[in-house]
């Protein structure tokens, strides 16, 4: 059955053939999934957060299970932009040629580091359709969520990175004060916003009285956070007019559809990739079937179509 619904969307200048993206840090750098399906079929992928220079990340253990979710404390382990490009640049350029948009995620400990990393990407990643600035990682002591905790701090990062590239900049937001921070980011020229990053949580081994992970707090992801994420996308949607990418607990087309209805232009599949490696293309198929069942000819008609 050939679909009659046009699925193409435009995420702030990143023209995706369908709304399904992958969440940074849950999709390696794409190639890991080629054994499961053709990654080129996705609308976009977002690569793992990468800084100008390599970061080690946090000690083990970095993951524990929670009810209907997991908690991670990876801490943005990455090889630095140069090594990243050397290892994966050719694959990622090929992915763009296959029609899947490549969004490279940018990490930093400070404004200077964000700028430096983006400069390197701007120079070394001509293939990238856009960049995602991560100001919301809860698992690093400097930078990360601290850079996105207030509207003022977020705006400062955005103002600094904006001049570095003409390509679309998406900002990855923390699950906190999204309306206010979204407005600040829009004002400083963000092309799109993605939300949410993991929600800070804590799991204690009551026998040893210590954290189950290597730091006291870590980030929760998976189905457990989905309804919170949908609410936050809806808050952002009412606050700004730039496009949004909905992230959090997407495991089915229905989960994705909730984000679209709440105002998201695209959705990212995250943790689900790790436990069901074929989740992302399945979400795309199910989303398409839903759009068709809603009787629209273009998925864009459903963006923000929540009735209340």
């Amino acid at each position, binding site marked *: 059955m050939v679909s009659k619904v046009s699925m193409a969307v435009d995420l702030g200048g990143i023209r995706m053939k369908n709304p399904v993206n992958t969440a940074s840090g849950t999709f390696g750098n794409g*190639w890991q999934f080629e054994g499961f399906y053709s990654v080129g079929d996705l609308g976009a992928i977002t690569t793992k957060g990468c800084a100008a220079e390599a970061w080690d990340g946090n*000690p083990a253990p*970095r993951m524990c299970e929670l009810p209907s979710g997991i908690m991670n404390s*990876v801490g943005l*382990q990455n090889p630095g932009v140069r090594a990243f490009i050397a290892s994966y640049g*050719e694959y990622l350029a090929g992915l763009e040629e296959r029609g899947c948009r490549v969004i490279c995620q940018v990490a930093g400990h400070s404004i200077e580091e964000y700028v430096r990393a983006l400069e390197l990407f701007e120079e070394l990643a001509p293939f990238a359709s856009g960049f995602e600035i991560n100001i919301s990682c809860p698992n690093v002591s400097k930078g990360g969520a601290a850079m996105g905790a207030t509207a003022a701090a977020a705006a400062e990062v955005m103002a600094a990175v904006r001049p570095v590239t003409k390509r679309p900049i998406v900002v990855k937001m923390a699950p906190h004060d999204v309306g206010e921070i979204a407005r600040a980011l829009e004002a400083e020229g963000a092309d799109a916003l993605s939300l949410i990053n993991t929600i800070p949580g804590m799991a204690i081994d009551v026998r040893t009285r210590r954290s189950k992970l290597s730091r006291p707090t870590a980030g929760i992801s998976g189905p457990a956070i989905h309804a919170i994420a949908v609410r936050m996308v809806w808050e952002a949607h009412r606050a700004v007019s730039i496009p949004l990418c909905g992230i959090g607990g997407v495991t089915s087309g229905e989960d994705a559809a909730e984000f679209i209805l709440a105002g998201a232009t695209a959705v990212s599949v995250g943790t689900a*990739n*790790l*436990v069901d490696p074929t989740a992302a293309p399945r979400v795309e198929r199910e989303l398409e079937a839903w759009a068709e069942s809603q009787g629209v000819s273009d998925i864009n008609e459903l963006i923000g179509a929540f009735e209340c």
Partner: protein
Amino acid sequence: MQPSAKVHLYDFHVCSNEAVGRDVFRMVMESPELAGKLAPGQFMNIAVPGDASHIVRIPLSFAGTDVDDGTIELVYAVVGEGTRRLSKMGAGSGSTVVGPCGNGWRIGPGGRALAVAGGVGAPPVIAAARALVESGRDVDVILGAQTKDRLWGEKDACDLSASDVVVTTDDGSYGRRGFTTQAMEDLLAQRDYDLVVTCGPSVMMAGVARLAQDAHVACQASLERMMTCGFGACSTCNVAMRAGGYKSCCMDGPVFDAQEVAW
């Protein structure tokens, strides 16, 4: 470099699944394509049905494969919710498995080898010993367990004709009383080895690695970490390296050169 992915998603069904010790189970599963691809020391990541609140797969090594039958033999301990549900999977039931994951033992021709297993570290060690024998090497096997009723692998080790088998239990309920490392010290004193392979609790492997280093014998260890994907997508399975930084247990391991690991 254009990286390529060798890990796939397969269906499997259970042929048999029964207790072989206290909270130790042996499962034979059928998954012909995967069975044909697994190398000793690699592992797979299994989705255990029956509780959607536990979303993470269970990584398990294997003790052996039968390529003709298309079957894989697992031995696992019931330690929590997931392995408990796994132990309830009856013959005929099925699910999906991700594999083959990681890199297995690096085994070529050479002299006598020593295989040291603790608890349910035995499956990949048995698989290694079998591969060593098949490549024409002599192998001695040390199998340790807390107690007799948690021991698995003695018969399988003995069936590998080229090997001497030493069994230890922490409480002396069977075989020699004490730890595998004590048995290993004795063997190292008696014989020359070319290679030590080991899998078991981290403290045990650290001890084995130290003894091997002192005896100037190469040592490979199969490590466990909390894993989410098993195929390099999430970076949650980091192993600290002696030289600094981390490697990925599921992609660079699970088998590591024991001397490279910061134990």
